[in-house]
């Protein structure tokens, strides 16, 4: 697994030295070795030569970057500075609770307003009719309400167990 150089040293040591990855003590030991080891010196010089080549190449590559690169990119970024209310809309996740509450209130109003209106009409009936009507409604109302909730699930949402069951 470990590769030995001709001098017996782990061959990655030269590069770890060159790349500044050797701890201080090992670095000094390696520098001592370097003076008497042509093989490691050669490897080190090769590393330097290759590094120089790659850096010169990179300078030339950078010239090929499209001139309007940054402008193009900035045009693609999602807008950041917006008026308060659109920011509220945009930050849906952070205001999720607020929105869930608003939707719940709207739904409750949709259910309650017709009931209240209906109750107003009932109140205007005769006293005798009113008493009987109220009592009847109290008996009828409870079974109606729980039916309101299961409806969206049962009628509009396909049950997870039956996708494509009809075909």
């Amino acid at each position: 697994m470990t590769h030995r150089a001709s001098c017996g040293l782990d061959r990655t040591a030269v590069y770890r030295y060159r790349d500044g990855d050797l701890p201080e003590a090992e670095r000094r030991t390696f520098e001592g070795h370097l003076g008497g080891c042509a093989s490691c010196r050669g490897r080190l010089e090769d590393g330097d030569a290759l590094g120089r080549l790659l850096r010169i190449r990179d300078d030339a590559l950078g010239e090929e970057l499209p001139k309007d690169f940054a402008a193009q990119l900035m045009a693609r970024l999602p807008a950041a500075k917006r008026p308060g209310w659109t920011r509220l809309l945009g930050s849906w996740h952070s205001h999720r609770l607020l929105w869930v509450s608003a939707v719940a209130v709207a739904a409750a109003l949709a259910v309650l307003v017709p009931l209240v209106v209906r109750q107003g009409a009932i109140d205007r009936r005769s006293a005798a009719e009113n008493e009987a009507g109220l009592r009847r409604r109290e008996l009828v109302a409870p079974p109606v309400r729980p039916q309101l909730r299961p409806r969206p699930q049962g009628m509009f949402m396909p049950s997870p167990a039956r996708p494509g069951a009809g075909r």
Partner: protein
Amino acid sequence: MSDADRELVRRAREGDQAAYRALVERYQRRVFSLALTLLKDRDDAADVAQETFLKAYQGLSSFKGEAGFYTWLYRIANNLAIDLIRRRGHTVREEIDEELLDPEAAQACEGLLATRLGVDPAEEAMRHELGETLERALAELPEKHRAILILREVEGLSYEELSLALDIPKGTVMSRLFHARAKMQRLLTGELSAGAEGAPVNVAGAVASKP
């Protein structure tokens, strides 16, 4: 991460697009040249660089800052480039490092590249024949070797940063770098030797000797 980057990231996270633009301008060339080295196509490289900065912007809030901002950018760019190569139906070369190297051949090369190159290669010469030689040699390397060479030699990432950018353990960083360099040096030395018999030759000499 440098203090300047940290401050720019903080402002960009708060929606300051000018701050993000400063980060883009600081790193666009580097991200682009990594992508170009991997993809070998200027338009593909520009696309991947754009996607890299877009993705980084969208993920700013999840960027923890334990590594440099550029380390994070290189990681995104490297992954996007590899994805694109695969989407194009090309194979990303995954051969095991240990099988690549003939130890004796590598030993015979020690010091030869530096000798062949002799002096500092002049920029002008680089743009001509030596540049082509270098590209041919790079093209023979697997993508993972190209990436680690560029990130180490050009971008100067430490082993810890390379480990984060390439998502590999530090031990793999060492062996991968070793094999990438050994293979590159062998290829370059071979090309340069074929071009000019007799040593030492400098780059200008190697270029001049060709008809």
